[in-house]
Structure formats: C-alpha cells, structure tokens
C-alpha cells in the first residue's frame, strides 16, 4: 500500500453539530443514528428480559405483580421485535454498507431514508409513551390477539399505532434498498456480481415491502375497533378472532425472515473473509434467500395449529413450513463448506458467525419440531416456543448483529477494539446465552406454558438455571458494550482493510469519506469473493 495516499476528511469530520446528524442525508450517518437508537432500545428491552428472569427465579411473587409482569413481557416483545431485531441489520448495516458495497455514494432516495429514521423515532416515542400516559403499557403480548386486545383497558391503541408507524418506516427502508440495488450498482456489477449481503437485503426488502402492509391494515382494524367500535374481530360485536390471527401471521411469519435473512447475509460476508477463499455455492446462497423469502409467505398457519384448524389447511401449512427449512439447510451446508481448505484467521467476527450457525441450528431444528403437527400440539405456547425464537432471534440474528459490529467496526470508526476483551465478551455471551435458553426448551417439553407469571413447583430447577444463565449473559453484554465504546473512543488506528477483505467497502479509507470513494472502485476478477492469493481449484 502506498503511503502517500491522502486521507480525505471522513464523513464524521465533514460537518459538526447535532443538526448535521439528525437532518443528515448521508446514508452512513443515518446508519449510525439507527445504531445508537436501536442499541438503546435493545438495552431497555434486555433490561426488561432480565427483570422477567428475576421474577421467574422462584414460583410466586418475587418482585412484581402479575399485571406488571404481563406488561413487561409485552413491552419486551414489542421493543425487541419492532424496535430492535426487525430494523437492526438492514437499518444499521444495510444503510451504512449497502451503497458502499455496490460502489455508489448513497441510497436511491436519501431524503426518504432520513424520513424512515424519523418515523422510526416517532414510532419508538409512541411505544415508550405508553409507559407514562394512560393506563400503562399494553398487556396483550406482542401478538395483540383479539379479543383480549380489544377488551383490555391498557394502552393498546398507542402500542398498536407504534407498531403501525414502525411498519411504515420498515416499508420505506425496503423500498429504498430495492431501487438502490436496481439502479445504483457500479458499472459492471450485475446481480450475480453483487455481494451476498446485498442479495440478502434484496430478498429482505421484498418481504418488508409486501408483507408489512398486511399487518398495517390489521393493526388499523384493531384501532378502529377500540376507538370507533368497528367490531371486526370481537365476536361479541360480530367479528371472528381467528381471522385476526390469520392476518397477523401473514405478516409476522415473513417478518421472522426479515430478521433472519440479513443476518445470514452477514455470515456470508464474514466467513469468506476470514477463510480467505471464495464462498462455496454463491448462486445457491443468493437464490436460496429469494426462495426463503417466497416460500416464507405461505407458512403462517403454523402458528395456529391449535386454533381448531381444519385437516387440509393444517397439511398445507405444515408441508410448506418444512419446505422453508430446505433452502436454509442449503445455506448452512454452504457456509461450512466454505471453511474447507480455507486459510482461516480465527478472529472475533468469525467466532460470532460460527456461533450464529450453532445457535441458529438449534433454533431452526427446534422449528422443525414446531412445524410437525402432532408435536406442535404439545409444545405450542410453551417455553419450547420461547426457547425456539430466542435461539433464532437472539442466538441467530442477534449474534450476527454483534458479529457485524465487530467485523465492520474498524471500517466505521477507523479504530480497533481490544481483541482479547472482545474474545472474553464473546465467550461470556455464548455460554450465558445457551445456559439461559437451553433449559427453556426442556421446560417446554415438560409442559410449562409461556406468558406465565407463576408456575408449578416441578418447573423450579430449570428456571433457576435459566435465570442464572441470564446473569452471565448480562455480564457478556456489558463487557462487550464497554469494550466497543472504549475502542471507538481511544482504540488503536485501524488500517483501511484490517481483515484483508475483498468486497468494495474495503477499498475505501476508514472511516469512509463523505462520498464513499475518491476514485472508481474496482470489482475483483471472477466474482465478488474470488481471492487472488488463493489457489484456484476449479477452472
């Protein structure tokens, strides 16, 4: 690397002051705005999670009342889903890196992008305002099932509106990314030369775009029912509560792939970089994202197997559920195969990516149990489901998010965190995570229902273990957060390409300049991950 390269002012330096941030049109700054806001809400909701675990340490009342507990898990679920995990990867890393990886200087609609962030903040304010105003946060669970959500006196209307606004924000982000990918790729980059992270975001964006409106309208119907008495779902004034469930899950199942696909995109970036070789089965990974997105639209009924669903409908939904597992399996095999004959540099981001695979395997395979009709009847609405979704959402998507944070950290801030501490934090997180959630799977198999403030004495031991695990987890998170802050403030300067990555973001300086590139980026020969230093086996 020639030493005479002039360091352009980075996007941090070009302008200063609060307004230069909250009214910025720069996709990198918007990504960072999202990072801080999402991180904040994650910590709030995680605190609520810890509170629940403390309450569940012993049967009976430990800390909080039953009603408070119900509000806590609802708020925990709503924040974690709508404010943390759905926007997490696309809004933070998608915003920051998609344009750079495509070799352009911004998304297609920079103003709309800023507007999405403002909507996000507005939605967050709505969600949090339920804490202060009226009769407290909703106590319905994040699913807002009718008719309870119509009857309860808590602030359901505001919570539901919050979800509606956040959905709108999510739609606009998706729309922006689709147009960006179609219109702004650097000359010479066809769809099949795109990095897999971009592919993952492309598939995700279509889900955001085509599934979110359905929940939007459903939530509006709940509002209309509560405010105007338009009784579309409450049977005592005409409606059918099962129909609500259909509409809710038409969105909310595809939504789980909004959480999972970008995370998989990150894993597909991290693994080739640290194996220093091309990804195995580029096309299989790229197209399986689209396949998951598509098939994922037709499986929602697996959340309703015990609602009195008919045989034929149950068959269709169950089969389709199993079919989504196949493209996912393909991805997992491809990742593992990418390690084969690599020259592996074991660093924290890679550890997070591999932990993703392990946790996601447990999450996904327990998903298969849930997809099987007979088994689901037993474990539906038990802690087995709670275990399943924490494994995929936290152990999977959450770990990928942390992995991305460690992977792109030097690019975003031009500094490096302390790698030893990062390793310790990772170990604590991994152990803590599994100690917290594995017992939940067993609890579920034994028949402990979810959303239970109190439980029968036979479930005591495993709950103690789970709560104990959550303490390790907290320690891990605290260590990680402190380490990252310390690294950002006074870490060693990082080179522009510390991991020897090959996708376009590693061709610009760290942190990138305002316009991302000060010369045309060059596409790697023979595919986005074709490492020139590696031996070529085929062709």
């Amino acid at each position: 690397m020639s030493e005479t390269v002039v360091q352009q002012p980075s996007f941090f330096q070009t302008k200063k002051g609060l307004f230069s941030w909250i009214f910025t049109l720069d996709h990198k700054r918007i990504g960072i705005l999202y990072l801080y806001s999402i991180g904040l809400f994650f910590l709030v909701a995680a605190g609520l999670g810890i509170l629940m675990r403390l309450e569940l340490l012993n049967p009976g009342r430990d800390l909080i009342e039953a009603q408070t507990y119900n509000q806590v898990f609802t708020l925990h679920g709503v924040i974690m889903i709508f404010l943390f995990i759905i926007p997490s990867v696309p809004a933070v890393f998608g915003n920051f890196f998609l344009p750079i990886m495509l070799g352009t200087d911004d998304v297609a609609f920079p103003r709309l992008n800023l507007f999405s962030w403002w909507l996000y903040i507005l939605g967050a304010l709505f969600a949090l305002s339920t804490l202060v105003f009226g009769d407290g946060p909703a106590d319905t669970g994040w699913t807002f099932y009718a008719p309870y959500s119509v009857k309860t006196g808590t602030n359901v209307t505001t919570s539901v509106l919050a979800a509606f606004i956040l959905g709108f924000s999510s739609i606009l982000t998706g729309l922006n990314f689709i147009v960006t990918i179609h219109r702004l790729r650097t000359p010479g980059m066809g769809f099949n030369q795109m990095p897999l992270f971009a592919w993952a975001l492309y598939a995700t964006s279509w889900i955001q775009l085509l599934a979110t409106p359905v929940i939007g309208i459903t939530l509006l119907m709940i509002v209309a029912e509560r405010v105007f008495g338009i009784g579309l779902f409450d049977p005592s004034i005409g409606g059918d509560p099962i129909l609500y469930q259909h509409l809710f899950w038409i969105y909310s199942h595809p939504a789980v792939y909004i959480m999972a696909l970008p995370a998989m995109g990150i894993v597909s970036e991290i693994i080739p970089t640290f194996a220093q070789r091309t990804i195995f089965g580029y096309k299989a990974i790229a197209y399986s994202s689209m396949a998951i997105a598509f098939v994922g639209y037709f499986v929602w009924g697996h959340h309703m197997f015990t609602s009195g669903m008919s045989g034929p409908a149950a068959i269709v939904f169950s089969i389709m559920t199993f079919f989504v597992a196949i493209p996912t399996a393909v991805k997992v095999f491809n990742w593992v195969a990418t390690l084969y004959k690599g020259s592996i540099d074991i660093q924290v981001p890679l550890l997070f990516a591999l932990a993703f695979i392990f946790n996601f395997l447990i999450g996904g395979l327990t998903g298969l149990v849930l997809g099987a009709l007979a088994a689901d009847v037993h474990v539906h609405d038990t802690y087995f489901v709670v275990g399943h979704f924490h494994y995929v959402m936290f152990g999977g998507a959450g770990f990928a998010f942390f992995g991305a944070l460690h992977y792109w950290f030097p690019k975003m801030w031009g500094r490096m965190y302390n790698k030893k501490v990062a390793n310790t934090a990772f170990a604590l997180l991994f152990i803590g995570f599994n100690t917290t959630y594995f017992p939940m799977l067993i609890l579920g198999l034994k028949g402990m229902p979810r959303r239970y403030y109190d439980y029968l004495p036979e479930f005591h031991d495993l709950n103690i273990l789970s709560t104990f695990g959550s303490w390790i987890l907290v320690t891990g998170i605290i260590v990680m957060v402190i380490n990252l802050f310390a690294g950002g403030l006074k870490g060693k300067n990082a080179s522009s390409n510390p991991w020897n990555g090959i996708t376009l973001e590693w061709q610009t300086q760290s942190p990138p300049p305002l316009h991302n590139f000060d010369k045309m980026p060059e596409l790697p020969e023979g595919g986005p991950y074709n490492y020139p230093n590696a031996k070529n086996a085929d062709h």
Partner: protein
Amino acid sequence: MNGKEKNTENTSAHAHISSYSEHFGTWVALILLTLMTVFISTFGADLRTLTVATAMLIATVKALAVALYFMHLKYDAKIYTAWMIVVMALFVFFLIMVILDYITR
C-alpha cells in the same frame, strides 16, 4: 452481465407517449363495462349465481384496462408488469390459503 436488465433500461429510455384518443377509447370501454355490471346485477335475474363471478370478472377486465393503458404498463419496462403479476399472484395465494381454512373448518 445481466442481459435482461440492460434491455429493459434501453426500452424505457425513449418514453412512449400515449395518444389522447387511446385514453379516450379506454375511457369509453371502462364506462361501458361499468354500465354492463350495473345492468347485469340489477336486471339480470337469471344470472343469479353467476353475478359475483361476472362482476369480479368485469372488474378485473376494467382493472386491466386501467393498468395497461392509463398506467402505461403496456408500454413501460416489462419488469413492472412482471412485478405486478407476482404481487397479484401473492395476494391471490393469500386469499386461497385463508379461504381453504374456512371452507374446510
């Protein structure tokens, strides 16, 4: 390189200008179809069981006319038509799967 992608970009580069008379013709057809559905449903007693189906069929023809001519789908890049078909198919799948649960319940 993705060949298809390039093609669509070229065709939409010289934007097609629809003529006034084409718009007018579309309008006439739409009005006629509207009057036809109203007529069938109010006076066509012998078509009783078919009315829903015919009404939906006519509505779909009208919607196609609006989409193809007023919204220029016919002359625009093919990708919009393709997307439109996918979105509509998705919606129809939703309908089918929900009604499946209700019919057989």
